[in-house]
Each structure stands twice: as structure tokens, then as C-alpha cells.
């Protein structure tokens, strides 16, 4: 049976059944390419770098040192955190960095592959998937490096961290879903790519990353409404062996994110051909 392909001006959303079949078929065939592209980018990155894998750790470490200094000198007073403050900030910034990286990945991936996109036909899903692989690689490095720090501060490391992967997966899905939704517009207008890190910076201050959860007032409300709060709190709690918090909200956000990821995928898929023709070839 020969494969028949039809190209017509008709929008693909008019035939949802066919579209879904094609989406999953392409996702399946994206695996190997995504893996190869991820390996390509990772090995190219580290071949050109002296500090190599350490870079995944340097940023959170620098932030931690800054905040530990601010806290110790009394410039900023952070409420009681339950665990040593350096551990609180280090885990917080690392978790936050994971989220920001996942958020930026889709747009970065398609922007980097512009030449390939305008000239070659390959499953577009592979770019997003390869971004996820690269992200996972960075996460693993971060975890490897954080373990000795936890041990140093007297936190037990072992089987009771079994929930950590769940938190990591949730962060990946939330970040990628939002990133995917922003990617199409971001491909047309570079403003989006510039705005993401700035917005993430602001969002960090209404998330318990370097600050503890505030007791009351408007900030407390913001912290509680923020969908990143349950993710960051639980990721940290599970990493450092503390009690889970805001569990229903965590589950709600995770399920919502899965749905959002699917919507983002649809959007990405439908808009890609339109966007490619607006890029220079």
C-alpha cells in the first residue's frame, strides 16, 4: 500500500481524526531524531566548554551565595524556612531554573532549527522532544551535584526521595506546555523570547524560591494562587525529606498541565507550516 499525501489549503483542524493520527505517528517517528539532535547539541556544547557540566550548577550556586549573604547580613530578612537557609535557596533556585529552562526550551529549539525547518521535511515534534531530552540531561547533572550538598547539611539521602521524579515531571510538563503555547508567536516576534526571562524573574519573587511562604496579606494570597508554588514547595519537600504540602493543588496543576501540553502541541502542529513560510528560507 503506497502512502498517499495530500497538500491543500484546507486547515488541518477540519479533520481532527486524521490530524490526531498524524500527530501520534509523527511523535512516534520523532524519537530517534530527537535523541540524536539532543546528543548533537549536548556534545557540541561541552566540547566547546572548559567547565563543561559544571555550568548546570554554577548559576544556582551563585544565586544561593548572593541570598545567603543578603540573609546573613540582615539586608533581607527571610522568615523561618524549616531547613538550613542555604539548602532552602539552593534547592529553590535549582528547581526554579528547571522550570525556566523547560519554559524556554520550545522557542529556543525551533529558533535554533530555523534553517532546517525552512528547508527540510522532518517531524516537527522531534525538536520539542529533543529539547526535553536536553532538559532531562541538565536535571540529572543538577541532582548529581546537589546530593553531596544535602548530605553535608545533614539531610538523609535515599529511598524517601522517591517522589522527586514526580515533581520533576510535573515541572517539565508545566514549563513545556506554557513554552509551547508561546512558541508560535515567539517565532514571528522576537519580543516573546526577550520577555520570557524577565517575566520569569518577576514570577520568582511570588514563588517560594528564595523567600519562605509569607504569613498573611496580599503577598500570601499571591503565593497561594501561584500555580508554581505547589510545584516548587513539593519538589523541595520531597528532595529534603519534608512533609508534602498543598497536595490537591499540586495534582490539579499537574493534570491541567497535561491538558495544556496537548493544546500546545495542537497549536504548534497547526501553526508551524504557516510560520515557516514567514521565515526567510
Amino acid at each position, binding site marked *: 500500500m503506497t502512502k498517499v*499525501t495530500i497538500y*491543500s489549503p484546507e486547515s488541518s483542524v477540519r479533520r481532527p481524526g486524521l490530524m490526531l493520527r498524524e500527530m501520534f505517528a509523527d511523535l512516534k517517528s520523532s524519537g530517534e531524531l530527537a535523541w540524536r539532535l539532543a546528543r548533537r547539541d549536548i556534545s557540541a556544547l561541552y566540547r566547546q566548554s572548559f567547565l563543561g557540566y559544571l555550568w548546570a550548577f554554577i548559576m544556582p550556586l551563585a544565586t544561593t551565595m548572593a541570598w545567603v549573604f543578603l540573609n546573613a547580613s540582615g539586608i533581607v530578612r527571610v522568615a523561618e524556612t524549616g531547613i538550613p537557609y542555604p539548602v532552602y535557596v539552593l534547592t529553590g533556585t535549582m528547581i526554579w531554573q528547571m522550570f525556566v529552562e523547560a519554559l524556554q526550551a520550545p522557542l529556543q529549539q525551533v529558533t535554533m532549527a530555523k534553517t532546517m525547518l525552512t528547508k527540510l521535511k522532518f517531524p516537527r515534534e522531534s525538536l520539542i522532544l529533543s529539547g526535553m531530552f536536553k532538559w532531562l540531561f541538565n536535571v540529572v547533572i543538577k541532582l548529581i551535584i546537589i546530593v553531596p550538598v544535602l548530605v553535608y547539611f545533614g539531610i538523609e539521602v535515599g529511598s524517601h526521595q522517591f517522589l522527586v521524579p514526580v515533581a520533576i515531571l510535573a515541572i517539565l510538563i508545566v514549563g513545556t506546555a506554557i513554552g509551547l503555547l508561546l512558541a508560535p508567536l515567539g517565532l514571528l516576534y522576537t519580543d516573546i523570547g526577550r520577555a520570557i526571562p524577565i517575566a520569569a524573574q518577576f514570577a520568582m519573587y511570588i514563588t517560594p524560591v528564595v523567600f519562605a511562604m509569607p504569613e498573611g496579606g496580599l503577598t500570601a494570597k499571591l503565593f497561594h494562587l501561584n500555580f508554581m508554588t505547589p510545584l516548587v514547595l513539593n519538589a523541595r519537600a520531597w528532595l529534603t525529606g519534608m512533609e508534602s504540602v498543598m497536595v490537591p493543588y499540586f495534582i490539579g496543576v499537574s493534570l491541567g498541565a497535561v491538558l495544556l501540553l496537548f493544546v500546545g502541541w495542537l497549536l504548534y502542529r497547526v501553526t508551524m507550516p504557516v510560520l515557516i513560510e514567514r521565515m526567510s528560507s
Partner: protein
Amino acid sequence: MIKEEALIKVEGLSKKFCRDLKTSLRYGVADVRDELLGRPRKVDLRPKEFWAVRDIDFELRRGECLGLIGHNGAGKTTLLRILNGLIKPDAGRIEIRGQVGALIALGAGFNPILTGRENIYINASVLGLNRKLVDERIDEILDFAGIGEFIDMPVQHYSSGMAVRLGFATAAILIEPDILFLDEVLAVGDIGFTIKCLNRVRELMRTSAVVFVSHSMPLITSFCTRVMVMDHGRTVMDTTEPGVAVNHYYGLVKNKGVVSGSGGAEVMKATLSINGEALEQDDPSIDQGGQVEVTLRIRVSVPGKVRATVFVDDATLSQMLGVPVMDMNGEHIEFGPGEHLVKVPLGALELNAGKYAIMVVIVDTEDGRSICRHQGLLPFRINADRVYWAKFIRSNVSELLPIGNTATGNVESRTT
């Protein structure tokens, strides 16, 4: 016999582009919105838009090769990109049966930091081929690319030719398409490599339907079974005789006369005649090997004497033929002040099919100064069934000799 079904069917295909970037991005947002809402595409042009491809129809079967020729911006590459599914048509429909392979943008996806060998695997993945297939044929690829020990060096140290060779070798060895798209990829590397590429493409052509975009007319006439001439997005000619299409394509070239020199003489009128008959129309088409004469009316207004030479320029403005204006004694005819009418025989124009024009150069006999150099005069075309890889084409009759005749020397050769 039942005719095999067409592998490519194109009906009323159109695509519009926008001239202005900012507007283009705005339209992009509008198109995305319509696409998401499932609205049909608007078929009329919005401000600042134009048709890059307009109402293209064709069908192609296995073993057929369609050549697309036209000037830059005629829509050939855009058409190929739509066929390849990279961008969506604005109107019309394409039906493609079977596996598509494209030899386009070779080496896109190469990472300069990684070695050639690593990049072969990446490139193959981008083409949708798995590791096992590459493992099986890696020696063949290396052999084809012929870049020796460089294969384990980072691609950034490659010359541009080497990178393209590697890209071509990877794609050309691995793909086994039913439908093949080619875009100007054969003009890479040295002649040895070019010939390897051409032979490989011929091999692929036997089992596939091919769409081939090129500016090389010899390639078009030797590969294609059918040629479409495109101009401003439209098909202006669609024929199974490549020679006719090439001739038509050359007819689309508008050359303008360019006059330079210090002044003091001018060509007032010029006419071409073939086999004694004057050609009245603009841009005439002359059959290869026709006897051509040019009649010039020149006016000299400098006091001294001048002499003239008539040239035939090809499309790249290089001189193919020079005919000094001489008398029967082999001396230059010297023209004094005033008007002169002179008939200059150019002989049989055994030129390769293509676009040509006359150039007249008038120099001062005293000091050799160019006082008039009139280029692009009387553009004309040479018409033939085939375009060869040569400047001059002579259709002589060869003679078969009995074997054992040892009048010829041994030929030394080296295979590259």
C-alpha cells in the same frame, strides 16, 4: 497496457507572498488565527502581496523528470517547497503517492563542532532513516564523499565543498524515493564528483518521478523528459521538448544595449540576416549552424581613421566569436569621418543553444583608444534540440573504421 498512476498530481496550485516584512508578520498572525478556527484561506491578495506561484497544473509518473526553469524569483523553489510539504498552498491541491526524497539543502542540520562521521548519522536521522541503515552503508557513503581522513575531524574545518560532498553523499546513498526533488545541487565540487553525482541521480531517476530545478541548461536538456518554463509564478510553457523550452526561457531574458567608450563614433542601425534573409523581428531564434551576416550603419565624427570589430557575446557577456571588419586582402577597413554601411559575414554560428548578442567595438587606428563599445546589440537565440556541455557544437558525420586499424595512439588515463 494500463498506464501507471501519476505519482504527483498538482491542480491549480497557488501561493502568495508578502513583499514587506512587518506586514508579512501581521498576515502571519491572521493566518494562524484562521488556521486554528478552521477557516478557509482567502484566495484574493491582501495589500503588498503577490502571487509567488500561480495556477500550476501537472502530473508526473515514474521515470519522468520534470525540469523547472525560469529566472530568480520565478517561483521554482517556492513550488518545490510546497511540493515537499514545507509550506501550505493558498489554493489548489497536491496529491503525492509514495516515499519522497529530496536532495535540497544538503548538510542542513550539520553541527560544525562534531565530526563528519557523527554528522552523517545526524543527517540521516533528519532524513528519517535509522542508525542500522547508516551502519550498513557507511562505507559506501565514505567512498562516495571521498573526503578521506577528514571524516573524523570537526566539520568546521572542512572546506565548503567538502561539507556539501558529505551532505550529498549521505542523502544520495541512503534515500530510495518514489518521488525525488532536486534543487541546484549538482553543481558542487570538482568535475570528478559532479559526474559521480549525476550518475547517482540518473540511477535514482530510473525508479522515481523527479522534479528538477536548475539554471544549468545542459543538465535540463540531458535529464528532463519534460520542461516547464516559469515566469512570475506562472507556467509560461510546458513541453516535452526541452530544447524548445530552453529557447523560450532565453527569450525571456531582456538584455539592454550598453554603450561605453570615449565617444566619437556610433552604431546607428544594425540588422541580422540569416542565409541572406534579413531578420526583422526582435530577439530572433536562429537554428544552430545558420549562416549569419550583420549589416551595420556607423557614423564616425572624430577627425582620424577608425577600425571596427564585431563580436558575438553569450549570456554571461563573454566573447564567443570575434570578426574584425576586413577587406579581401586581410587588412582592417579604415573608416574616415562620415556615415558608412558595411556588411560583415559572421559565418556559420555553430554555437551551443542559448542567448547571444552582438557587440561592436570601434577603435581609433592612431592610438588604439576605444571610442565606441556597443554591447547587447541585436540579441538573438540559437535554437537546438539539445544543450551540450560545450561552447561550440559542430554536427559533423563520424566514420566507423574496421577494428585492427592501428592508426591511433594509446590513450593514457587516470581515474579520479
